């Protein structure tokens, strides 16, 4: 109710609710006093359309108790649960509170299940079928939205099932990526590289590093300009996992393959982000999940099907 500046609406809503219940009680009391007139043939004596008579079919008296029970229920509910304006109710119940209780309860329930894996090395967890079944579900619920159900990624979203790692593929590094998230930052380098022809030549040189189709004349011209890139990607173009600079020699193109894509990246740069999962997943869950991700590229035929 923080949306409102005064408590007028709160009082208004509470007032209407209570008046409504009071109205029901008044109606019940009134109907208990009311008398129905019946003639000797058990009709009310009213006749419509010549022969349509109104029979007296009284409601059973015990039915009134159902009405009274609803009134009692309504009052008890309003006293215990939020319903009367901003009054939070005796139980202090809230949807968020219930959600948090249930999550805490759920986590407590699965705690013993994870306890077994906590003391295991990630390499061993990756060999445990139960852990991998859990890992797969965690991946489906938390990772597949970007990396795909088969973990093979998409343009802009890294493939996790190959041996190419931007920030390192050891279990420790994967845990770090999961916990803290990652930001990959390629600054716009056009000014440092030189003219637009220079940029194009560098692009061809980059293509040549992985043996992709390229113009060898342009590539040899671009080689001298690659110095601007070498600071991060290394002189040999093999990248630097410490700062998340991709390896340019392995023919894996996260942001698109070919001359035009590379030119665009050099000109415009790129910031790519992996969100941190800390707080969203528990430590044990991250342990199992990291082992699962590690297993994708470290066990032959470990992709989904078995």
């Amino acid at each position: 109710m923080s949306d409102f500046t005064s408590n007028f609406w709160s009082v208004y809503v509470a007032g209407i609710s209570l008046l409504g219940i009071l109205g029901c009680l008044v109606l019940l009391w009134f109907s208990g006093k009311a008398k129905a007139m019946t003639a000797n043939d058990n009709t009310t004596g009213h006749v419509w359309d010549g022969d349509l008579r109104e029979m007296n079919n009284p409601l059973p008296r015990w039915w009134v108790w159902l009405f009274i029970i609803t009134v009692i229920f309504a009052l008890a509910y309003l006293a215990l649960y939020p319903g009367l304006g901003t009054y939070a109710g005796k139980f202090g119940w809230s949807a968020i509170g219930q959600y948090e209780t249930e999550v805490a309860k759920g986590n407590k329930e699965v705690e013993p299940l994870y306890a077994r894996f906590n003391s295991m090395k990630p390499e061993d967890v990756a060999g445990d079928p139960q852990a991998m079944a859990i890992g797969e579900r965690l991946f489906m619920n938390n990772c597949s939205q970007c990396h795909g159900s088969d973990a093979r990624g998409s343009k802009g979203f890294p493939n996790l099932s190959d041996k190419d790692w931007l920030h390192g593929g050891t279990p420790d590094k994967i845990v770090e990526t999961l916990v803290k998230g990652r930001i990959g930052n390629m600054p716009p380098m056009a000014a440092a590289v030189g003219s637009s022809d220079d940029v194009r030549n560098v692009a061809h040189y980059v293509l040549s590093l992985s043996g992709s189709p390229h113009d060898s004349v342009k590539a040899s011209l671009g080689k001298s300009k690659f110095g601007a890139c070498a600071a991060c990607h290394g002189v040999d173009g093999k990248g630097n996992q410490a700062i998340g600079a991709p390896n340019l020699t392995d023919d894996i193109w996260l942001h698109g393959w070919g001359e035009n894509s590379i030119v665009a990246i050099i000109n415009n740069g790129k910031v790519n982000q992996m969100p941190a999962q800390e707080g969203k997943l528990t430590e044990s869950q991250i342990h199992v999940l990291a082992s699962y991700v590690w297993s994708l590229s470290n066990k032959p035929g470990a992709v989904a099907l078995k």
Partner: protein
Amino acid sequence: MDNLKPTPRKVIPITVMAGEQLQAASTTGEGESGSIYQAQKKIYPRSVTGFFSKWRWAMVFITQLVFYGLPWLEWGQRQAVLFDLEARRFYILGLVLYPQDFIYLSGILVISALGLFLFTAVAGRQWCGYACPQTVYTEIFLWLEKITEGDRSARLRLDASPMSVNKLTRKASKQFLWIALALWTGFTFVGYFTPIKELGVSFINASMGPWETFWVFFYGFATYGNAGYMREQVCKYMCPYARFQSAMFDKDTLIVTYDEARGEPRGSRSKKADPVALNLGSCIDCTLCVQVCPTGIDIRKGLQYECISCAACIDVCDTVMDKMNYPRGLIRYSTQNAVVQGWGKSQLLRRIFRPRVLVYTAILLAVTAALFISLALRSPFKVDVIRDRASLARIVSGGKIENVYRLQVMNATEATQQYRIAASGLPGLMLAPEGTFTVDATQARGVTVTLQLPYEAASPGSHEIHFEIESVNSPGRVIEKSVFLVPR
């Protein structure tokens, strides 16, 4: 525009009974000006024996043997009938049903409804009188009441008498029996949803879960309240079927009838007296038919909505007729037409084959056949194909386009199954990685499948493809449609 002119309406005034008339009515004691709520008079039905009573008891035994017995039946390693709501698997003998099989429940409900229509059209409220749980439990509770408090007159006397040790003992033992049966009923009901043997252990140890506890006691309380106290009130005020059945009645529907032509004028007489000489009908006005009626009506007033067609009045009247040496059947199952036109049994039976009954029968048979055929042809597993939400399509090394799918495979057998996937619909379409996979017994599993297509093997856009999933070591094949997207 002329035809829009309103035609003059006939006005009929509402006539209200004049004051003197009303007063006259109330002073004679027949008419009154009372509360708009009706206080209920407690009914003390007299116990009855006879042909129809035997049938009702037979139905009590059959229905309750099924209800109380079924959860204890074993099928292989598990309970034969178990509705596992938590795992959302429904076991009925050899069948394992998923929530996706809801159509079968709809089928059973349609069959039940049509069955009810058919029986009602032919024989009136036979369901109410013999098989309805309300009737059956009331019958059992009445029997418990009879063995503790005695029959109608004894109960009437007991209720009128002041509190005594005898009264307290009788009332307490009745309550004990009622509550025990009600609890057993609630326990059995929950036993359909949670394995009954484990439930029995936790019931004895008082360690049932909160929902199990709630339902055992709630269902038990409902049984106790409805069969012990509400009784005919349920039929009169709560049951919708009791009210809409009139739509299924016609003049050839079997109802409990009182042969007015033969019975009237009623009056008591000596057994030896000649009724013709006394100008009396066959009805000796013993009021036994009213005393045995579980809904407290007088059948001699004709068909009433309270009548549940239980035939207690027929049984008791037949015994009276026997004693009087009159022919049986003053009160009998008959139809309105038969009574009015004096039909015999064969004429009455011939009227069963009327269009309404034939139509109900035809639809009932068709739906029943459809249900069983569909159950027989049911595939032992189900597959849902969902396109991966992460990427529509992607280009991978080797000049290939990839689409990713999630296959939800639901194993509806009680053995681990191996399945093989194949995809077709586009030339050069390949499954990567190729393979088979297993799904545990009665479990569902999501399998990620990647399809690859050589670059430029298909035009840009959406292409229909089919997944074919085959069970490796048991029969069964499912074909599911999906699409393969080729980017521009």
